[in-house]
């Protein structure tokens, strides 16, 4: 007769092994390694909270210290590989399998470990996709998470950086898993409860505060005139053209330039109230001038951003905040918001090929995707209309019949790149490095971040290519070449075909858009330095020390 509650039995055994280490739910920091050895078993699937901002770094370090004779062959599932410890567990023989989303800082070492056979990658995911699998076939047996504070009952306050925590805890706590939280402090009364204590098994007061990376801060002083020019084209050629009210911006200086041009150039075009009202976006400091000028109605965030706490608190009409006044972020919900409720995604990339596929994978680095593929994809399950979405859908389907001609909308997915990156590295290539990487790491598919099929526009300093107006592969190729400038791909264009596309409005040069190159100077930025951002916030924004350059 089958035992239908083996997972509950296993949970009881693990909890009883760990019981001597805990008083109520609290385990002393010095006992953390012993706690992990008590609850972990070989082959366990373990979710270690680590994303591009908040890190359960104390628990990550403790995991590298367990005895590999007792704990081995773990299957790690986690959003981001950011810390050396995230890979040390594979080098130490503690873990052997990995499913993840993004590995930016560890991308080169990850590629080395894969080629040395030290770990097997199941798949590289987008965030929302990985969270989804936590509830299907990658459910964690043990979850190691980070929170700002706990009370005696194990209730958790995450502070502004809630991020991935609710998704991870939900999956583990309701499948008889074990949830262990590292916290910065233990208090009598929490400002608010982000995770109920009933879902948390153990709390460790970490000796140091968990790491948080200010990943979304861009110093306006580093924005170039070319980025100003491209931002002007984005605002006039795309935001105004489609009436984009609901949007997500990728990370980087290109999109920071757009944010800083809304209250200046956008204002001069009379766009206030017509574009940029609702955002799925982290609290980008670069958006402060637009918020202060009254452009922004709402912002829901994946995570927070260091230094923005007081500003957010003072602008609760705009940000999602708790009754305590602090931001409540949630990566899973914000990813869903970006996918289903935004009309536009605009972001940068490293390489674009002739089909418009784009990738940030380069040779020798397994970097992953993060959230971009989820934002930068048409949402096929969407059914509600909006001006921008319906217009893009009409353009993309004009003249088509049958199933492909059935009316529906389309998400605007814009890839924004300078034709050459630094050191004259071309952004346009005949073949993405992703293909070679897939061969080397034996991946079933090349790690393409945004599929050309989903890209509606490519924007470079040379102009805008409206790929959604192209009807054949040849047209699409010439449209890509037509904005690829003086890269090999650009020089290889069929000049007549490109001029023909320009006549049809598929390619638009700055002069076709009425963008005056003389305005493309840094004077057009609503803030030109970190100090300007602080001033724009009325002194509420407090940048981290590394950005304080005045």
């Amino acid at each position, binding site marked *: 007769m089958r035992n239908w509650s083996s997972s509950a039995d296993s949970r009881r055994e693990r909890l009883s092994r760990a019981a001597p280490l805990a008083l109520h739910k609290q385990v002393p920091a010095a006992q953390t390694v012993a706690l992990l050895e008590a609850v972990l078993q070989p082959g366990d699937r373990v979710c270690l909270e680590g994303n591009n901002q908040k890190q359960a770094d104390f628990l990550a370090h403790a995991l590298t210290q367990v005895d590999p004779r007792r704990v081995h062959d773990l299957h790690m599932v986690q959003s981001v590989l950011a810390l050396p410890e995230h890979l040390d567990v594979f080098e130490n023989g503690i873990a052997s399998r990995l499913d993840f989303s993004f590995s930016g800082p560890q991308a080169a070492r990850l590629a080395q470990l894969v080629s040395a056979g030290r770990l097997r990658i199941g798949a590289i995911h987008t965030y929302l996709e990985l969270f989804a699998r936590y509830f299907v076939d990658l459910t964690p047996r043990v979850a190691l998470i980070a929170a700002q504070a706990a009370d005696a009952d194990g209730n958790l306050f995450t502070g502004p950086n809630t991020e991935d925590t609710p998704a991870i805890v939900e999956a583990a706590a309701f499948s008889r898993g074990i949830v262990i939280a590292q916290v910065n402090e233990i208090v009598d009364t929490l400002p608010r409860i982000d995770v109920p204590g009933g879902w948390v098994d153990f709390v460790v007061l970490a000796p140091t505060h968990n790491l948080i990376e200010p990943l979304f801060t861009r110093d306006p002083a580093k924005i170039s005139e070319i980025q100003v020019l491209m931002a002007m084209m984005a605002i006039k050629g795309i935001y105004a053209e489609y009436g984009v009210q609901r949007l997500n911006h990728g990370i980087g200086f290109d999109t920071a330039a757009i944010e800083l041009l809304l209250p200046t150039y956008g204002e001069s075009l009379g766009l206030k109230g017509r574009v940029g009202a609702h955002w799925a976006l982290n609290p980008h400091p670069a958006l402060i001038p637009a918020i202060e000028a009254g452009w922004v109605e709402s912002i829901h965030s994946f995570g927070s951003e260091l230094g923005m706490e007081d500003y957010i608190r003072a602008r609760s009409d705009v940000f999602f905040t708790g009754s305590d006044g602090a931001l409540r972020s949630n990566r899973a919900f914000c990813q869903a918001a970006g996918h289903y409720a935004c009309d536009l995604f605009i972001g940068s990339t490293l390489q674009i090929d002739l089909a418009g596929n784009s990738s940030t994978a380069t040779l020798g680095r397994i970097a992953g995707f993060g959230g971009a593929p989820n934002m930068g994809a048409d949402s096929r399950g969407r059914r509600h209309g909006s001006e921008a979405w319906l217009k893009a859908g009409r353009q993309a389907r004009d003249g088509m019949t049958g199933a492909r001609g059935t009316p529906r909308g389309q998400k605007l997915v814009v890839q924004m790149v300078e034709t050459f990156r630094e050191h004259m590295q071309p952004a346009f290539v005949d073949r993405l490095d992703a293909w070679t990487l897939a061969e080397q790491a034996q991946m079933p598919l090349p790690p393409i971040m945004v599929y050309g099929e989903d890209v509606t526009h490519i924007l470079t300093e040379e102009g805008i290519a409206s790929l959604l107006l192209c009807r054949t592969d040849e047209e699409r190729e010439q449209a890509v070449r037509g904005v690829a400038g003086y890269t090999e791909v650009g*020089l290889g264009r069929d000049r007549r075909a490109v001029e023909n596309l320009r006549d049809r409005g598929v390619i638009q040069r700055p002069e076709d858009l009425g963008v005056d190159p003389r305005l493309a100077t840094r004077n057009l930025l609503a803030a030109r330095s970190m100090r300007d951002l602080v001033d724009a916030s009325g002194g509420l924004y407090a940048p981290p020390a590394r950005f304080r350059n005045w």
Partner: protein
Amino acid sequence: MNTAPGLETLRFEFPGTKPAGSFAPVLVGVVGSGNLELLLEPDSAPVCRVTVQTSARGFGNIWEAVLRDFHERHRLSGVSIAINDMGATPAVVSLRLAQAAAEIA
């Protein structure tokens, strides 16, 4: 003409069709890393003459392509352009050319 060590000098001449007439010289940009200085002046010859001094050697074909595209767009005649470049990308070169041309349009 003296050329600083390491600099490459490139000269181009395009036959123009739109006489620019007389205008005050236009200076755009500054000499700095990744940037350039461009001086657009009237010239007695009915052509568009361009002299480039650049610290980034070996990109003559790209300079020619950028300048040819600029010239096809504007067809200026009776002008000379002097460029002092410190490794500007083609994007910056094109922007400076467009800014200078817009000043005399």
